[in-house]
């Protein structure tokens, strides 16, 4: 009881004083998750579109693979990446283990299937008449695809935000490949996990509050986007 109230007071004073360590951890979190999200979107969106709009053999398999990978356990991704990046692993020579780059890689792998899969379902749910109308108006195949993706924009955005929510809150994978090195690879979730372990509650609580606020903000934004997408009356 004592430690909770004391921890809370100290946590708020940490936040209020813009503690340098705290800010560093927050910035690294945003940087790692932001870059991972960008890469995952750049790869996942075209992938979702391709699987949704082109016919090819094993399409069904590709779709279920995408859906399955959405639920990849983060620790398994972490372990897998660790084995590849560790000194004796196939990519060990690159020296990526315990760097922010390795964490970005892990989060990209976690976000990519979410973005690909949700983009895919947004795109296949676009009314086929949109494709036909685009063609009759003189669109080239690329322009048709872009117009369909534009029509699916709210669903695609939801997928990207859901991806962000997943990577920001994730701890298992980044802990394994990042190592939680102070001032270098510490992000909010890993710091919370390890500081709690050490009994250092104030930093853990301060970060917990901020992470909670960020998650709430992300979820509210997601909700807004979904509402905006759903507001269109159907004729």
């Amino acid at each position: 009881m004592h430690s909770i109230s004391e921890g809370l007071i100290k946590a708020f004073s940490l936040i209020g004083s813009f503690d340098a360590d705290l800010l560093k951890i927050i910035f690294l979190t945003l940087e790692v998750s932001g870059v991972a999200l960008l890469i995952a979107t750049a790869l996942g969106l075209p992938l979702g579109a391709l699987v949704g709009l082109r016919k090819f053999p094993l399409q069904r398999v590709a779709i279920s693979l995408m859906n399955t990978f959405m639920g990849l356990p983060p620790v398994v991704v972490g372990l897998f990446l660790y084995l590849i990046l560790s000194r004796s692993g196939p990519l060990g020579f690159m020296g990526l283990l315990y760097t922010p780059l390795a964490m970005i890689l892990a989060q990209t792998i976690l976000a990519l299937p979410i973005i690909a899969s949700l983009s895919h379902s947004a795109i296949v749910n676009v009314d086929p008449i949109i494709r036909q109308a685009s063609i009759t108006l003189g669109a080239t195949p690329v322009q048709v695809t872009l117009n369909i993706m534009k029509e699916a924009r709210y669903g695609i955005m939801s997928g990207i935000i859901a991806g962000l929510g997943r990577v920001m809150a994730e701890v298992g994978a980044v802990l394994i490949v990042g190592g939680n090195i102070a001032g270098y690879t510490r992000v909010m979730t890993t710091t919370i996990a390890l500081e709690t372990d050490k009994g250092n509650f104030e930093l853990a609580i301060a970060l917990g509050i901020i992470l909670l606020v960020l998650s709430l903000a992300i979820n509210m934004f997601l909700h807004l986007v979904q509402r905006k997408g759903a507001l269109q009356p159907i004729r």
Partner: protein
Amino acid sequence: MKLNVSDINKSYNGKAVLQDCSVSFEKGAVYALMGPNGSGKSTFLRICALLETPDKGSVEYLSGDSIVRNDIGLRRRITLVLPGVGVFNTTVHKNVVYGLKIRGLSKEEIRRRADSALEFAGLLHKKDHNALTLSTGEGQRLGIARAMVIEPEILFLDEPTVSTDQENTAIIEGIILDMKKKGMSTVIITTHDPAQAERLTDRVLIMRDGKIIEQKSP
């Protein structure tokens, strides 16, 4: 451009929908395609507008005596307004300029054509509304405005007035009659209303069970 359709056949899942349809559409004339539900009118239009290919037979666009190659260039000279239109989830204005933007026309040209089409279709006051909020009649007018701005040489309209009231029907017929007067475009519409065919068209084609059984004056 002239359009020659010869001996086209089309089946879906083994069921013949069009059988040996042959017609010539002359430049600048207005045609009505009539016939009972399910007789194949929409399928015929989709094939003429190059949205689908026939199983057999040919769809040839002719400029003078030479066949125009079936490519994006040709597709950009014709257009079809689908039944149900298929408006895009964006403003009325952005719907109208879509065909112009993808053609890379200049800003001034886009503005000039869009303003005049919106005015013509009576949608100027709704240009910033989301197109999905339009009524059925307004949606049909948007479909026609979106097609008109392209200044197509051949315009196919699939049941443009099927669920519109008198006022909207009059506006849409006004647009078609204006195009007829200018003589720039060939217009081919499907309709179930013989009086409308008489008001608008030079020639009526009757379809039944996938065949064109009659071609006559309205």
